[in-house]
């Protein structure tokens, strides 16, 4: 049975994690308590991050950039009016996680820390070029989302480090969208796609989820595609570049082969969805 400690500051939380070797940070508990109930983890101490003001809320900085506190619940991200244009993709991804009740509990920091390959935030954050702010025994640092996932459930977080916030560049007026293919509403993704158009409409940024340990994004292939979005061959070539990066699992949600086939379909369908948004706008 675990002792629950509730630090009031990031520094205290980091100190408690350093003091107790078998301690784990507790965000919403949506994954951690489920794992503990199943006997998969047995933390001696749970460091409850819910009383730390710094980890709460969504703010805009002076340049228009957005800082999402690690303890922000999915329901609040899904309702956030600051996530517009190029950042709408993140708001949409939040609204497709599980169901209302789980969205009232789960947090962005917890989801990112957990790095489930099929979870919804990582592809959306990769599409938004997010940066993670972390704090640990060695002090504070930033990690680009593109350097974050290093293997299956393996991340750039060091022992004793916590995520304090997720920061995003200022939104620009350009359409973005998130599409999730799942067996039923509320399930984890079989495959997913986060996409944002460049403001001039000539290029795009895209990340595929649930087809490898981390989100798939190919910025070189995006550069090649720029200026050729209305050429279906070029779009399929682009999708093939992403599929070449994939390392999909065979699991209950779908076979590896099925997932590979979903990648070009996701890219073409999400692209036509956001192209339509531009025409309407």
């Amino acid at each position: 049975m675990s002792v629950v400690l509730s630090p009031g500051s990031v520094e205290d939380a980091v100190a408690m994690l350093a003091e107790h070797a078998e301690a784990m940070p507790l965000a919403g508990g949506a994954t951690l308590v489920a794992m503990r109930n199943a006997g998969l983890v047995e933390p001696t101490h749970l460091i409850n991050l819910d009383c730390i003001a710094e980890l709460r809320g969504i703010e805009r900085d002076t340049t228009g950039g957005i800082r999402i506190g690690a303890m922000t619940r999915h329901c609040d991200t899904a309702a956030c009016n600051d996530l517009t244009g190029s950042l709408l993709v993140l708001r949409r991804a939040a609204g497709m996680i599980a169901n209302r009740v789980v969205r009232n509990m789960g947090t962005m920091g917890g989801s990112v820390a957990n790095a489930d390959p099929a979870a919804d935030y990582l592809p959306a954050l990769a599409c938004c070029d997010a940066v993670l702010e972390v704090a640990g025994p060695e002090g504070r640092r930033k990690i680009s989302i593109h350097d974050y996932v290093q293997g299956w459930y393996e991340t750039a977080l060091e022992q004793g480090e916590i995520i304090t916030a997720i920061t995003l560049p200022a939104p620009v007026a350009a359409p973005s969208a998130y599409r999730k293919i799942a067996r039923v509403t509320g399930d984890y993704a079989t495959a997913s796609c986060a996409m944002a158009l460049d403001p001039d409409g000539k290029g795009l940024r895209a990340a595929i989820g649930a087809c490898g340990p981390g989100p798939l994004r190919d910025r070189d292939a995006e550069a090649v595609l720029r200026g050729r979005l209305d050429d279906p061959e070029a779009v399929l070539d682009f999708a093939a570049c992403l599929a070449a990066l994939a390392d999909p699992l065979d699991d209950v949600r779908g076979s590896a082969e099925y997932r590979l086939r979903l990648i070009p379909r996701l890219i073409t369908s999400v692209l036509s969805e956001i192209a339509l948004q531009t025409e309407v706008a």
Partner: protein
Amino acid sequence: MSKKILHSLNLNGEEVEVATPAGATLLETMREDLRILSAKRGCNQGVCGACTVLIDGKPVRACLTLTARCEGHAVQTMEGMGGDRVMATLQRHMVESGGVQCGFCTSGILISARELLEEDPAPSRAAVKTALSGNICRCTGYRTIVDAVCSAAEELAQ
């Protein structure tokens, strides 16, 4: 025996003191220590919805919520919702439409349905199905439950 810790909780509008094992979930504390039995333990994984309760008015999974984190927050279960007009209407329609068979899922379903009607008083059938997608029922086949929520919404709108 694991060590018990004393917590003070605001449960269904009353202040209660309870001794519960360190790190216990709200579901364990309610069922084992307080004998509040409306919330059921189905999966203990957050998946089935049978343990859904309200904290500060919002539905959450009691099986994933630690009792230690409930101090200073208002916990509500079906036991404390008899006087709520929306809930009473939902309950009556559930009984009349045959939305209750064994009853294991019922309190979780009602709490999720009540939140839906608060946000969307005239939901479509599709919206009802989406809102209840996190609540599993092994008996009814769901149609009678969706019927109940839709007809309760109609009655409440009158």
